[in-house]
C-alpha cells in the first residue's frame, strides 16, 4: 500500500497551515492549499528527502463559475526517485495573483504562461508573462466558461487590404439545427 504510506507521510510532515484538503485515491493524491502557499509547498516537495518531486509535469487552470473563487490552479508533479505523483491545487479568483513557481521548476514557465493566457490567472513577479496560445491581439481568456465556444471575432483574409482582418463573428447559423430526436440530418425551415 505504497500510496497509502506516502499519503500518511505527507499528511504528517506538511506544516498544517498549508493544506486545507487532502485526497488520497488511486487516481492520484491531491492536496489543496490556500493562495499564499503553493510556492512554499512546492519548494518543500522538491527539496525534502522523502518526497523528491523534481519534475513539474503541468500546471492547469480550471474554471468553476459557481464558486466564489472560481479558478483552481492545479500543479501536477512527479517524483522520479519514488515514482509517485501528486497534485497541488490552489483556488484563485480573477484578480488574485499567485506566486510563480518558476524558480524551483523552470519548466513551469510555459505552463504558467498558458494558465495566464487561457484562464487569466496571473502571477506576481513572473519573469516572462506573455500570451502563448492565443492569437496576437486576442482579447479574452478562452478557457473561461463565459467565453462562447466559437468566440467573438471571426478572422478572414481581406483581399483589398491584403492582410488578415478580424471582424465580429457572423457564422452562418441556419444550417446548424440539431434535433437529437432523429439521427438524420435535419434542415431548418428558414
Amino acid at each position, binding site marked *: 500500500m*505504497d*500510496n497509502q*504510506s*506516502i499519503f*500518511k*507521510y505527507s*499528511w*504528517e*510532515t*506538511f*506544516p*498544517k*497551515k*498549508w*493544506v*486545507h*484538503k*487532502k*485526497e*488520497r*485515491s*488511486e*487516481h492520484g493524491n491531491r492536496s489543496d492549499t490556500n493562495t499564499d*502557499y503553493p510556492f*512554499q509547498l512546492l*519548494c*518543500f516537495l*522538491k*527539496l*525534502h*528527502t*522523502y518526497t*523528491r518531486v523534481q519534475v513539474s509535469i503541468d500546471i492547469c487552470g480550471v474554471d468553476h463559475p459557481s464558486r466564489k473563487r472560481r479558478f483552481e490552479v492545479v500543479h501536477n508533479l512527479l517524483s522520479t*526517485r*519514488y*515514482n*509517485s505523483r501528486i497534485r497541488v491545487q490552489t483556488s484563485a479568483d480573477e484578480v488574485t495573483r499567485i506566486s510563480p513557481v518558476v524558480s524551483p521548476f523552470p519548466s513551469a514557465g510555459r505552463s504558467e504562461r498558458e494558465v495566464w493566457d487561457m484562464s487569466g490567472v496571473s502571477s506576481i513577479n513572473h519573469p516572462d508573462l506573455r500570451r502563448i496560445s492565443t492569437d496576437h491581439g486576442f482579447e479574452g481568456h478562452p478557457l473561461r466558461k463565459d467565453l462562447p465556444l466559437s468566440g467573438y471575432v471571426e478572422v478572414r483574409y481581406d483581399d483589398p487590404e491584403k492582410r488578415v482582418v478580424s471582424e465580429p463573428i457572423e457564422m452562418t447559423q441556419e444550417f446548424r439545427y440539431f434535433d437529437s430526436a432523429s439521427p438524420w440530418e435535419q434542415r431548418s425551415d428558414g
Partner: protein
Amino acid sequence: MFLRRFARPLLAKVKETTGIVGLDVIPNAREVLISLYTKTLKEIRAVPEDEGYRKAVECFTRHRLNVCQEEEDWEKIEKRIGCGQVEELIEEAKDELKLISLMIEWDPWGVPEGFECEVIENDAPIPKHIPQHRPGPLPEEFYKTLEAVTSRPKLEKATAPSEELKPKE
C-alpha cells in the same frame, strides 16, 4: 584486459562514474555525508519540537549518519541506506539543508485555530485496462520514519513507540 582482470580487486573501491550525466564522482563521499548530516541535525533544532517535519528529519538523518559512520565503504553505505548512489545522497542532504533554512524563514509551524482539513478518501478503483506504474518499493527507512512520525510518544505511552524516536531533550 588482463591487467584489469588482475587489478580489479584493487579497483573495486574506486568508483569510476556515477552513470548520471552531470553528477561527478566525489571521492570522499563518506566524509562529506557525515559533515552534512551533522550539520542537518544541528540546524533542525531551530524547528519547534513536536512538528512532524522535525521528527521525520531527525529520524532519517540519524539513521543515515549511523550507517555512514559504521561502514567505511561507499558501496556498503549505498546498499544499506537503499536510496541510490552516494552522490545522490549528498545532493539530497544539501537540499534538505536548504529546505530547513527556507522553512525557518517562512515559519509555518503551529496549527491555526479552527483548523479543519478535509480528508477525502477516494477508493474508486482504476479500470483494469489502464496501465499503472506502481511506485517501486520504498526504502525501509521510510517506513521507520513514518512510524516515528505518526506515533505520539506523549499521549500513548502504553504502545511502545519505535526505538528511533529520540528521547526528549
